[in-house]
Every structure is written in C-alpha cells, then in structure tokens.
C-alpha cells in the first residue's frame, strides 16, 4: 500500500510544483530552453527520466548542474537527522515504557505532559531558547552548525548537538506517547495476564511478552515522522545556517531557482518513500500475523 503511495508521491510533488509555476514562470522556463511548448506530461516525463540518470538540471542562480548541490546537502541533512534519530528513538521509547510502567504516578505525569509540551513547540522556538542558554549564556556549544573545513567526526558531532536538540524534542513527545499507549494496551492484555499467572518473573513478562507487542505500532510511527523531520530541517538548517537539503530548498524557493527546488523536493519524496517502505518491511518481519498470514 505504502509502495503505491510512494509511486504516486513524486508525481504529486512534481505536479504541485509544475502546476502553479508553469504559467507564471513560462518566460524563465523558455529562456532555459526547457521546452515549455511540449505538453506538460512530456516535460515532466523527460525531467523524471533525466533525474533517474542523475541529471537534475541546471541551477538558475549558480549556473551549474544541480546534482552536486542536492547530494551534498542531502548528506549534510542526513548527518543532522541521524544525530537526532539516534538520540530520540531509544530515549523516546524508554520514556514511554517508563511512563507506562508507572501509569498515573507522578513520573508518568511528568513524562507524558512534558513530552506533550515539548512536542508542540516549534523548532525555531526551542532552537532560540537552546541557543540562548547553551550558546549565548553558558557558551558551551557553538551557535552555528557550520563546522570548520577539516572537522573530524567528533568535531562535526559537537557542532550538531545543538541543532539536533529541537528535532529531538519534537520527536521525543511523539514517540514516547506512542510507546506509552502501546505499552498500556499490552500490559492490560489477556496475554500479559496469562504470562503473569504462569508465575514468570516480572522482568521476563516485560521483555518477552509485553515489549515486543507494545512497540510494533511505534515502529510505523517513527517512519511517518520522517516527513515531520524534513519540515523541521528546513527551519533548523536556516536557524543554524547549516548547508542541508532544507536550507537549500528554502534558498531555492526564495530565489525562485526551480531546478534546485524540484530536485530537492523529489529527493525528499524518495527519502520519505524509502523510510516508509523500510518501516513496513520491519513491521512485517516482526509481526508473525503479517509474515505468516492466517490459517495454513
């Protein structure tokens, strides 16, 4: 199903861009001999074909091929996203699990309400506040994410901590909340009762019987968060002056540099589709009901 969605996806993105722009920007497009006189679909088709071959067109502003820009930016964004993800997935799940195990006790209220509150804060708000605290007042961390030219792995990581934190906060509440509700459902289930009444130690009940069933839905949620994450990147990369795909799209949109804009957004679409497919795959591997189907 998601595969189908992924198939339709780039098409829609492309149409969303091409539709409104084709009229307004016809002159520019003509100048760049894109061949606007051809039917839209043909145009779109050849663009996609070129994209697949690695030719993403030529930037209006930089007067040079788009592909290197987009690929560099993608690598940078992935570094940032990876830091946020590596932090948030285990901590978010842990938070949700701890909250569920302490249901309705103060610890649960703190994690739930705290998670809920940080999730809804716009990234630039948390970003600003974090910059003020760690960058301006405490001066522990750099306020820009643009690391020096020959920075090694750890130096890059050092520069990425502050920008990844707002993303972390947005995702934390979401993941923790899903993990918590999955846990509550699993803890209340009949099979958990069966396991407890077998006389199994509490640790075994949680590890073997509860966690696996509880966290299955969370996996899907994490994948759908890729979309949010990309939106967040646009803001964060701008705020921290970081050369990623988000800031590239932002700059392209401001400068009306359509080849870069189109390529950037199609890239995002592909990343999203791949992430969703991966989650589907993981889900079906972990869930015997899907893996094995029903009777026989």
């Amino acid at each position, binding site marked *: 199903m998601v595969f189908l*969605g992924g198939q339709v996806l780039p098409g829609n993105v492309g149409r969303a861009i091409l539709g409104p722009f084709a009229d307004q920007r016809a002159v520019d497009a003509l100048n760049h001999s894109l061949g606007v006189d051809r039917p839209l679909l043909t145009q779109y088709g050849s663009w996609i074909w070129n994209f697949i071959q690695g030719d993403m067109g030529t930037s209006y502003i930089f007067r040079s091929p788009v592909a290197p820009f987009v690929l560099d930016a993608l690598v940078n964004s992935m570094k940032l996203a990876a830091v946020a993800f590596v932090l948030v997935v285990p901590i978010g799940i842990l938070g949700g699990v701890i909250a569920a195990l302490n249901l309705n006790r103060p610890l649960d209220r703190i994690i739930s309400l705290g998670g809920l509150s940080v999730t809804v804060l716009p990234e630039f*708000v948390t970003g600003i506040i974090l910059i003020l605290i760690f960058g*301006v007042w405490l001066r522990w961390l750099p306020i820009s994410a643009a690391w020096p030219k020959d920075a090694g792995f750890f130096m890059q990581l050092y520069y990425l901590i502050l920008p990844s934190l707002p993303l972390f906060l947005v995702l934390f509440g979401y993941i923790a909340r899903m993990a918590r509700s999955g846990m509550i459902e699993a803890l209340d289930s009949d099979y958990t009762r069966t396991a407890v009444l077998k006389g199994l130690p509490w640790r075994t009940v949680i590890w073997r019987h509860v966690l696996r069933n509880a966290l299955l839905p969370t996996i899907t949620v994490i994948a759908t968060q890729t979309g949010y994450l990309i939106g967040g990147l*646009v803001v964060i990369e701008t705020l921290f002056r970081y050369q990623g795909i988000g800031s590239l799209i932002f700059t392209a949109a401001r400068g009306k540099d359509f080849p870069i804009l189109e390529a950037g957004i199609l890239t995002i679409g592909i990343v999203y589709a791949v992430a969703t497919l991966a989650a589907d795959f993981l889900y079906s591997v972990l869930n015997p009901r899907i893996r094995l189907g029903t009777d026989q």
Partner: protein
Amino acid sequence: MSSSETIPDNTAPRGPWAEVFFSLLRSPTFLVGLGIVLFWVACALFGEHFAPYDPLADDIINALAPPSGEHWFGTDQIGRDVFSRVIVGSRDILTVAPLATLLATVAGTALGLFTGYFKGIVDDIVSRILEAFMAIPVVIVALLAIVALGTSKATVIVVIGLSFAPIIARTVRSAVLAERELDYVAAAQLRHESALHTMFVEILPNVIPPILVETTVRLGYAIFAVATLSFMGFGIQPPSPDWGLSISSNYGMIGGGFWWTVLFDALAIASLVIGVNLAADGVQGALND
C-alpha cells in the same frame, strides 16, 4: 403483561455531553490550558489598552535597551517596546491559526465522511492522494504555495487549512469506516434513508468526539505552523508585532547578546502552544472516559 409495571427507571442522571463537560471541569490539565489560552485571547482583544507603549512606535535613541523599569522586556533594534509588542503580538496568530483549523476541520470532515461512507475505488484514489499529500511537510507546501501565490494572511490560512485537511480527513474516515459497520447504518438503509441523511444525521453525530479531539490538537499545530512560517518570512508580514516575525527579524543579533529581543517572543509562543495542547489533552481525556 405484568412486567410492564415493573420496569424501573434506571436511566443515568445526565446526558453524555453533560458528563464530558463535568469531567472537563475536573481536569486540571484542561483548566490550566484553557486559562493560558484565554489570557492570550484577552491580550489579542484588549492588549493595546494595557500595553505601556505603542507597539509600533520606534524610538531610535533607546534602541536595543536591555530590560529595565521603564521597558520591562527591553527594546528592539529600532527602539520599540518589546513588552508591548509581546502583549499585542498574539493578535494575528490567533486569527490566522483558528481560521486555518476551521477550514481544515470543515474540509477534512466532509472528505472523511464521503470517502469513509462510499468506500470502493473513489475512496482508494482519494486516500492515496491524501496520503501522498501528507508526506510533504507543511512548511514545504507553504513555501511553494507562497512562492507561487504571494504572501498574505489568506494564503497562510488556505495553505495550512488545506495541509491539515487530509490529516483530519484520515481521522474522520477511519471513524466513519468503523461506524459504517454498525447495524444502525443497515437499519437506516432498511428505511430507505438517503446517503446524505445517513452520513450527516446518522453517522456524523457519532464521529464528533474524534473530530473534536483532532481539531483541538490541530489548533496547536496550526499555531506551530503559523509561527514557523512567520519566522521563515512566509507568513505574517511586517510591521505586525507577531512573535514569529519578531524573532525572525532579531535572531541574527543574539550572538551579540541581545537576548531580550527574542526570548520573550519565544516564551510567548511556547506558552500559547502548550496551553492549547494541555486543553486538547484534557478534551481527549474527557471524551475517552
């Protein structure tokens, strides 16, 4: 038959909506959230009457003054009083975000009802399109739309409204799909009710709770989105004292230590979204009881 006299009145004292109302009043989360939201609504409505300065009046001599007895939150780069701007800054966001949410709710509910009720191929196609649409982050949709259509409050409302509509439609659709399997829908068909009657009179009242929850949650995200767009320069335009916009025009200077030009606006946005979400959480709790 004799049993007629003996069926006692075992009716519950209050209707379901009254119970929701009373359980809202018992929820501290909801009350705190509501309090914060009402505070900002009051500021939006009457702010200029108790703001100490004109939020738009510049005063270059006193530019970038740190917080003091005179200017509680300091002044910005052209000397405008930050405190007054923060007080009045909620006005635009509190107009744009609720209108966008309303648009999203109406469009999303209609879409969700139709796709859920008619199932089949129409539903499949529409759902695929909505799914694809939801994959694109709001910020990027907005970016594109605003590049194409130009910046105005109306654009922001439409963009956010239409971006959120599929999310609400998805919630409504799954609720409608569940309702559709219930026998009262078959009973309506056995009375030859029209599809519109079945959708709007039979099914809609039963899917109001999830719509209400989704709407309150979306309002929080609409504020999130409006603030973000303003910060990116694609939302509310100068000279509005809007919070996101103020942060956008001042954050370049925080390296220089002028923290007061952005901190109070950031805290104001934070308090508003948290307030809306605490209220939403309360609503959700009350409806799920």
